[in-house]
């Protein structure tokens, strides 16, 4: 109840004309940087940071977070339209979003993505409002073994999804782990797999890999298939947006499950990327009819988007309460917090209630503003696909390379992106899945750090993953998810033998 009163007070702080203008400006700027892959939210926010030095902290954080929401939405746009995820967390959106766009259902896919993202974000804020005090305490119970269990859970819910041969999945995932180890190792403080290249000191940027694997790889494939997007034939009308809004309630189960996964991953804190992958994996697993996933199923867009935004939003809370940023963008904002003279930590809620609750209230308003604004851009973005491929194709190539270059202003990254483009093409041709590689690349080094820290803590005993109820539950769940496909196979075989039995 106290929280609700504080929230009302927060609305008083956030809902001024000036702040609403900041939100609109922030969201529009955010969509812009989100749509250009590589520029992305972290770079956009750090470019804007110097402008906020003269503002008061509440206005400053409202501008920056609004830009963040805008960038998250913008990142989904390019995932769906061009198969280029702007942020690691929107990779899973490409799996079904891009096929939908290719079939001429771009309007539907974009609207679904934005609506479910908005729903997820609101679920995240509601959680923050109700559970703010409890969440901070809960997050303190997480140490390296718990982190590892969370990542393990994300991997487990994604492998064994079927589709291709399990061996190909493993090959792809192991390659991802290898890419993730490049650069400085936290645990030993030594360089690994840099082969004397200075450019590899900071590791292989995830964005460069994704721009190559998805963006460029897909372009090569499209060229081979005959230079056309089916989107050309699609009609684009604002009415499609309304029709999609009407259809949304039909997917309540997916929305609910994905919000729960997102909130859980946001506060634990596994992060939005793990959340979106896990949500996609579970949506497919729980679907009555698994056919069609990866070929343009609405649930395949709704699940990752909802979870991504629910996690992204609820992760703001641990950041404020613990001072540990959950994402690159959050780290930039936290740096801002310190420059404005605020110390993130448990006392922030007591010392600066105006700031904290003003921010929470602005998250409600900012996300509503963002959803309205991005929905208005849907017809415009969807219309891009009607431009002939001969024109849009080269433009995408240019955007891809600009994006890869912007990540760290390095020419080396362009070659890397091209290399990954070829890898992406070869993977598609040989029917190797790309997703496990991407998942391993994003979470690989975090999982490795957490595992090795746990091993140092326990002096090498695996029992640490069963040492308390929290970590034991998560490990058990992960193992169960991992073995699920085997159980399923055994059941099928049993059923098959029974079906055969009467005949014999």
């Amino acid at each position: 109840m106290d929280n609700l009163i504080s929230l009302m007070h927060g609305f008083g702080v956030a809902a001024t004309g000036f702040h609403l203008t900041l939100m609109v400006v922030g969201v529009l700027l955010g969509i812009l940087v989100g749509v250009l892959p590589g520029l992305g939210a972290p770079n956009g926010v750090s470019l804007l940071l110097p402008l906020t030095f003269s503002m008061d902290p509440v206005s400053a954080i409202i501008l920056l977070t609004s830009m963040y929401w805008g960038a998250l939405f913008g990142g989904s746009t390019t995932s769906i339209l061009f198969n280029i995820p702007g942020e690691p967390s929107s990779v899973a959106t490409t799996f079904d979003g891009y096929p939908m766009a290719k079939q001429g259902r771009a309007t539907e896919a974009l609207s679904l993505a934005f609506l479910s993202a908005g729903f997820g974000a609101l679920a995240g804020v509601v959680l923050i409002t109700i559970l703010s005090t409890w969440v901070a305490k809960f997050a303190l119970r997480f140490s390296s073994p718990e982190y590892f269990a969370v990542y393990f859970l994300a991997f487990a819910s994604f492998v064994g999804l079927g589709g291709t041969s399990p061996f190909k999945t493993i090959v792809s995932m192991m390659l991802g782990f290898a890419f993730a180890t490049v650069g400085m190792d936290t645990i030993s403080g030594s360089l690994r797999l840099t082969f004397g290249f200075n450019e590899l000191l900071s590791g292989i940027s995830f964005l460069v890999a994704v721009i190559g694997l998805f963006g460029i790889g897909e372009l090569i494939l499209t060229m081979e298939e005959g230079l056309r997007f089916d989107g050309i034939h699609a009609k684009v009308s604002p009415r499609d947006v309304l029709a999609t809004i009407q259809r949304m309630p039909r997917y309540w189960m997916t929305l609910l499950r994905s919000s729960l996964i997102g909130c859980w991953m946001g506060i634990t804190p596994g992060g939005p990327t793990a959340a979106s992958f896990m949500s996609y994996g579970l949506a497919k697993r729980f679907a009555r009819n698994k056919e069609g996933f990866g070929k343009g199923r609405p649930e395949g867009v709704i699940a990752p988007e909802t979870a991504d935004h629910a996690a992204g939003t609820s992760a703001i809370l641990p950041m404020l309460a613990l001072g540990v940023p959950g994402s690159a963008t959050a780290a930039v904002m936290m740096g801002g917090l310190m420059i404005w003279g605020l110390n993130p930590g448990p006392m922030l809620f007591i010392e600066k209630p105006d700031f904290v609750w003003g921010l929470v209230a602005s998250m409600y308003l900012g996300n509503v503003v963002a959803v309205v604004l991005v929905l208005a851009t849907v017809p415009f973005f969807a219309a891009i696909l009607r431009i002939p491929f001969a024109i849009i194709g080269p433009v995408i190539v240019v955007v891809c390379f600009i994006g890869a270059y912007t990540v760290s202003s390095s020419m080396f990254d362009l070659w890397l992106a091209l290399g990954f483009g070829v890898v992406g093409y070869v993977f598609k041709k040989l029917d190797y899945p790309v997703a496990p590689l991407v998942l391993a690349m994003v979470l690989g080094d975090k999982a490795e750090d957490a595992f090795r820290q746990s091993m140092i803590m326990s002096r090498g005993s695996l029992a640490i993953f069963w040492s308390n109820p929290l970590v034991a539950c998560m490990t058990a769940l992960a193992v169960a998810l991992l073995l699920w496909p085997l159980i399923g196979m055994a059941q099928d075989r049993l059923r098959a033998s029974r079906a055969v039995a009467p005949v014999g």
Partner: protein
Amino acid sequence: MKRITALALAFAASVASAPIAQAAWQPSKPVEFVVTSGPGGGTDTFARVVQSIIAKHKLVEQPIVVTNKGGGSGAEGFVYGKGAAGDPHKVIFGTNNEYLLPLVAKLAFKPDDLTPVAAMAMDEFLIWVNGNAEFKDAKTYLAAAKSKPEGFKMGGSQSKDTDETLTKLIEGATGTKFIYIPFKGGGEAAVQLAGAHIDSNVNNPNENIGQWKAGLVKPLCVFSPQRLPAGPKVAGDMSWGDIPTCKEQGVGIDQFQMPRTVWLAPKAPDDAVSFYADVLAKVKDTPEWKEYIERTSQTNRFLSGAELKTFIASDEEKNRKVFEKEGWVVK
């Protein structure tokens, strides 16, 4: 015709002003602040505070852009700085990692590649334990640790970096043996201690203040020759000045500090070095800088010129001893 006159005038003006420009070097294009840590890290805050003060007091005519190059524990930024040899528009911000990192990892830059400009603040180190721990002072904590070798977990930021170095120094001085667990950064080590997953850390004041205010962690002693300046109360009836020095507590380490340093690319002209040293000296006299130093509980100490070179040489020597003893030095 008009344009030609204007051009001629501009040319004449630039020729006329050239001798003055040479006497006092001024940046002629936007200046890049290269931060050798990720966004939100201590070095990042340091550079951005300097940037905001310069902008506010208009100490540099040209605009300043901050870029983060924190890959490989900061090596990325130093290598980038080395690549910009002769360009005095790249200012590199770091800590003592500029001259310590190349000792423990095989990197494409050497400590004396970059030109030192100034050290602006010294970050302090303390021994912290969980807020509910039974230990009242460093003496009892270290005695408990001594009686149980490898029974206590010390968390810190990164591996073979300042936190682990200090842990090794403590072990050498007190005959203890900790399990050192490297985390990605000081923030993580702070939260792990607040959650009682580790027994202690040696965080900088700024990394733990939030948790201390909430009573989740508590300081036992500080590695400085004198106590920190007494300020307002931070937690309960304690202020920074009430924390005993580790020397008082019988730990044979006089001092362990981390300088916040500023560098230029190799072959930077002397004029440029003194230009930036002057600007930074002005920065340190602003109220905003004092506020930053107080808020982060660092020690205000400004070094430049010969003084700075002596400091770097002695700091490197001190750390090298530990590295050699632990076998961390790469050939």
